[in-house]
Structures are given as structure tokens and as C-alpha cells.
């Protein structure tokens, strides 16, 4: 299908973009990489009155290490992030996750800001941002604010961004000593949305996971943090019994959806498979 008609704007600056967002209100949509929005336009799932294309706003595509951590600009393309030595060194979880996102010809356009703001519950980046304890930077005509990743994702494709607000960057804290990451996912085909994905970030000490942050995609309306599985891992010697116990805790705390792609029972099982792989990987790495 073809999109319904819309008005197209290509602001040259953030103030211009914010003015347009205010002018169009609920009829205006921000166009970044377009790899989720344009399919929605083509299928007429989205019929905005105006598109505000932020692609030509300079400075929004930075990938930079600052005092606050690794800063990924809203327009940083996933292909560039995937290949960035800074990301590999300071946010290995994201570097591991990105090859799972769709395919190369999508990642060349797809942006960090778009992937976070779109908030697809099966998407990889939101789970990574929550696992890493990152923040989202948002700008409106009232000023800028930072939103913690755990508070940012509110529901299926729903975020804490308010009317007239645009995501400008995400910030990932610097990798602390001893912390390691493991991202893995299971999908029908490579590049499809995850049936289940696991972003695991943990502090390894004395052959155990002293602290672990486990965040899953594809098992709920938002990225889902698995607090009981985290507790079952923390500080334990990971023998077969301990691993079974952690996988059981995970299966008990998850309440995944059943849909055409997989049943809830299959998703629960796959989450356990990913947990076992992640624990082994984190301890070996």
C-alpha cells in the first residue's frame, strides 16, 4: 500500500523542529530513520498530517564518550554504532545486540533515537538501555530533561515523551570495573523481531555473578527486568542446580504473551535457554 497524504517539513535546527511539533500537535510525527514509521505509513497504520524530518539537523548523530558516559545522538545510525570502537569498548552489550536488529540495509538508516522512541516491546535497544541503566535526553520548548530508561518505557510503543518533546540522545554510563555483558536472542529467522531476547549485564567476581541485571525483550509490553532471576544468580556458585533454580525463578516471574509467533510457554522456555547461555558466557568471557 501507499501512505496517506501528509505535509513534509525538513527543519534545519532543533528549535525549528520543536516549533513544528507544537504547530501540528498530535498530527505531527518526527521522522528519523523511518525504518518503523515508514512501514506504518505504507500500511496506513499511521496517518499523520505532517512529517517533521529531523535527518538534516546537524550534530544529532554523535557517538561520543563524555564525563556522563557514552552519548549516542538521536540520529546515530545503528550501522555506525555497531561499528564504533567506542561502543565496543564502553557499551559491549549494545555492540552485541545490534547485529540482531533487522538487516544491514535497515541498520544503515535506522537510528538510536528512533529505536528507543518507537519502543517496540520486541526491540533490542530498549532492553539494552534498561539493562545498562541508561538515560534518555528529551528536549521541548520548555527545556531539556533526562529520563531514566526504566521509567521511559510505559507500554507497547508508548514512552514518557510528552507532546512537543523530541528525543535528542541516550546516555549509557561508563562501563564499571568487573562488569561484563552478554546479549542473545532467539527469532524465527535472523533479523526478525525477537521471540525472546535477553540483555544481561553483570559484575563478575570470584567466578560468580556478584550482581546481575537481566532485561528481556519480547515477553511483555515493555522491556522486562527479571528481578527474581537476578536474585537467584547473585553471588551463587553456578553449578547445574543453581542454574536450574535461576531458570525456574525466571519462568515463574515472566508473563509473556501468546501470539502467532510463539506461545507463552515457548517464550518462557526460550527465556530459560537464553539465561543459561548468558550465565555461561558471562562467566567464561
Amino acid at each position, binding site marked *: 500500500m501507499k501512505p496517506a497524504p501528509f505535509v513534509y517539513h525538513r527543519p534545519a535546527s532543533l528549535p525549528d523542529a520543536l516549533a513544528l511539533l507544537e504547530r501540528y500537535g498530535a498530527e505531527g510525527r518526527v521522522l528519523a530513520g523511518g525504518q518503523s514509521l515508514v512501514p506504518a505509513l505504507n*500500511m496506513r497504520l499511521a496517518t499523520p498530517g505532517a512529517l517533521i524530518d529531523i535527518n538534516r539537523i546537524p550534530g544529532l548523530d554523535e557517538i561520543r564518550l563524555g564525563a556522563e558516559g557514552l552519548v549516542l545522538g538521536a540520529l546515530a545510525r545503528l550501522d555506525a554504532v555497531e561499528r564504533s570502537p567506542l561502543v565496543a569498548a564502553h557499551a559491549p552489550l549494545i555492540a552485541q545486540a545490534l547485529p540482531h536488529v533487522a538487516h*544491514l540495509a535497515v541498520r544503515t538508516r535506522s537510528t538510536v533515537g528512533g529505536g528507543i522512541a518507537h519502543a517496540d516491546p520486541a526491540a533490542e535497544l530498549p532492553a539494552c538501555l534498561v539493562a545498562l541503566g541508561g538515560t534518555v535526553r528529551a528536549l521541548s520548548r520548555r527545556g531539556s530533561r533526562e529520563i531514566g530508561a526504566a521509567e521511559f518505557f510505559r507500554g507497547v510503543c508508548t514512552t514518557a515523551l510528552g507532546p512537543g518533546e523530541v528525543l535528542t540522545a541516550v546516555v549509557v554510563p561508563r562501563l564499571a570495573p568487573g562488569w561484563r555483558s552478554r546479549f542473545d536472542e532467539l527469532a524465527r529467522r535472523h533479523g526478525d523481531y525477537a521471540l525472546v531476547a535477553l540483555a544481561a549485564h553483570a559484575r563478575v567476581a570470584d567466578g560468580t555473578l556478584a550482581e546481575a541485571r537481566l532485561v528481556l525483550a519480547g515477553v511483555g509490553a515493555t522491556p522486562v527486568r527479571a528481578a527474581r532471576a537476578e536474585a537467584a544468580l547473585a553471588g551463587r556458585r553456578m553449578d547445574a542446580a543453581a542454574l536450574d533454580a535461576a531458570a525456574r525463578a525466571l519462568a515463574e516471574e515472566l508473563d509473556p504473551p501468546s501470539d502467532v509467533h510463539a506461545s507463552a510457554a515457548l517464550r518462557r522456555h526460550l527465556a530459560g535457554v537464553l539465561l543459561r547461555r548468558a550465565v555461561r558466557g558471562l562467566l567464561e568471557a
Partner: protein
Amino acid sequence: MDTTVAIELAVNGTPVGRRVEPRLCLADFLRYDLELTGTHVGCEHGVCGACTVRVDGALVRACLMLAVQADGCRVETIEGVSGTGEVSDLQQAFAEANALQCGFCTPGMLLTAHEILQREPGADPARIRLALSGNYCRCTGYQAIVDAVHRVGGARGRETR
């Protein structure tokens, strides 16, 4: 009321200026406005890979980019890379390996395969298969395509040694 927007871009090295509706995607612009019908349109939501082209050197889905977004850009299609001979070894290998039947996926396959081999000259068949997983072929079963791309990767590697 005229709702069209003026764009200027370079397509396969030739400067082009047109007025387009904002909702026109780049793939339809190439096909209907410029009659470059080698760029195919399959799924229109970025899954099948038939519309793959290059914009400013980057591989993109032409169904997921608006023509207005290509204003000021350098667009290369299968017609362009065929004309320059950039993918002629791949085309030859596809023919020899029976890596196409109906040909609908072939332009996207060739552009994607070329990009893989440029990024990973020594890509093994498993890597090639993974990288081509975003390009659907409903005829061949993929084995012949992977064979053809792998063969070209090896030949290009020998040439540069």
C-alpha cells in the same frame, strides 16, 4: 493546490530534478518517474530486500525512504552498478551458478552481496547466508546464491593478492 516538493539528486551519476508528492517513496520514484524498473517493489515494509539501492554509498531499502529525503543525495541503482561493471563478476557468477530463476530478487541480492564482499572480503558461506537473510528469494532455495557470492569473494581475494 500543488502539494509537490522540488528535489534535485544524482541518480547513477546523472543529475535529476523533479517535483514529487511527499508520500512518494524512493523506489516508486525510481520506477515510475525515472523508469528505472530494475529496483523492484515487493513487501513495501522493508522485509524482502527487492528494492535495495545505495544512497550516498549506503545500502538502503528504497521502499522505506521517501523520495523527498533523497534530495541532494547520490542514488545508485542496479542499472548504475550494471552499467559501470561494478558487479559484473557477481552477475556472471549468478548466471553460471543458476542463482536466479524469476529474477525478481536479483537486483537487491547483487547490491547486498557486493556490499557484504566489500565489508568482509573473506566472508564464509555462513556469513554470506546471514548477511543475505534480509533478501528474500522464492525460487532458488538460496544455496546457489550463496555459492555464487562465495565464489566471487574467493576470486576477488585472489585478484588483490
